[in-house]
């Protein structure tokens, strides 16, 4: 039986290539934000004031901590501490779920006030404001979808470690899922700055 040849560095570089395309994807959305901020500065400011910095800031802390846990889990796995690895990975997933729970409450509050794409209220407010909210929903919605995908990937890694498919000799799956997760965190860092802090 020939051993399946694995290229750890190549596999990791492949994931990085994918992440670079994700940077371009979200970068495009941020450019839209910048162009429309330039065109509608007052409307962006007044719309931005309607976003709650506690939801944004809280979720920033949640994702930073989630990233912290997954980074720790890789070190743990490489040091052959399998149970610690699984605990840390559970923490990562737990905080990711917490992020989505916060997002649910934040979006629910907005939707309750009639602020959602296609709502009657959106037609009444100034064009600059409705553009702000459209961008907010598209960007945070796409990001939220990435969080959900991340939860699935992290869970997959959890089971792969539990069954020893991923271990201290072959940890590329965990490393790559971790890289993806850190990028999701970085995207949120910029979403938080542009949507919650600046305006």
């Amino acid at each position: 039986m020939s051993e399946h040849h694995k290229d750890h560095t190549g596999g990791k570089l492949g994931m990085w290539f994918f992440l670079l395309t994700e940077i371009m994807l979200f970068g495009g959305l941020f450019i839209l934000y910048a162009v429309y901020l330039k065109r509608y500065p007052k409307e962006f400011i007044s719309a931005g004031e309607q976003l709650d910095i506690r939801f944004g800031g809280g979720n920033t802390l949640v994702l930073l901590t989630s990233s912290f846990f997954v980074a720790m889990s890789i070190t743990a796995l490489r040091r052959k501490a399998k149970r610690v690895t699984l605990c840390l990975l559970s923490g990562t997933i737990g905080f990711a779920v917490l992020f989505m729970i916060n997002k649910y409450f934040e979006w629910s509050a907005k939707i309750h006030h009639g602020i959602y794409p296609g709502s009657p209220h959106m037609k009444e407010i100034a064009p600059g404001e409705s553009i702000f909210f459209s961008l907010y929903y598209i960007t945070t919605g796409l990001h939220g979808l990435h969080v959900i995908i991340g939860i699935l990937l992290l869970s997959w890694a959890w089971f792969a470690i539990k069954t020893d498919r991923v271990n201290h000799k072959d940890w590329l799956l965990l490393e790559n899922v971790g890289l993806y997760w850190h990028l999701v965190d970085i995207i949120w860092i910029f979403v938080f700055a542009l949507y919650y802090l600046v305006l």
Partner: protein
Amino acid sequence: MSEHEHIVSYKIIVIIWLVLLVLTGVTVAVSYLNLGALNIWVALGIASTKSALVISFFMHMKYERPIFKLCLLVTLCILAIFIGFTFIDVLYR
């Protein structure tokens, strides 16, 4: 081969995490000050610093071979061109 790859210590990961939390606090606090046009640049500056820390340590980039760093650099340059040329257009309409 990959066994020789550097492992980031628990200590460094914890320190970087704490620095990230502090920077988050700083950026929130600064957002309450009125610095006019400077607000957005301070916010983006702190966000970039936080991202650099996540990339360098959590994503292990500091310890990767040059090709990884080159690929990221090229991407950021492309993004900068995308932003720059858009604004050369938009700012002078």
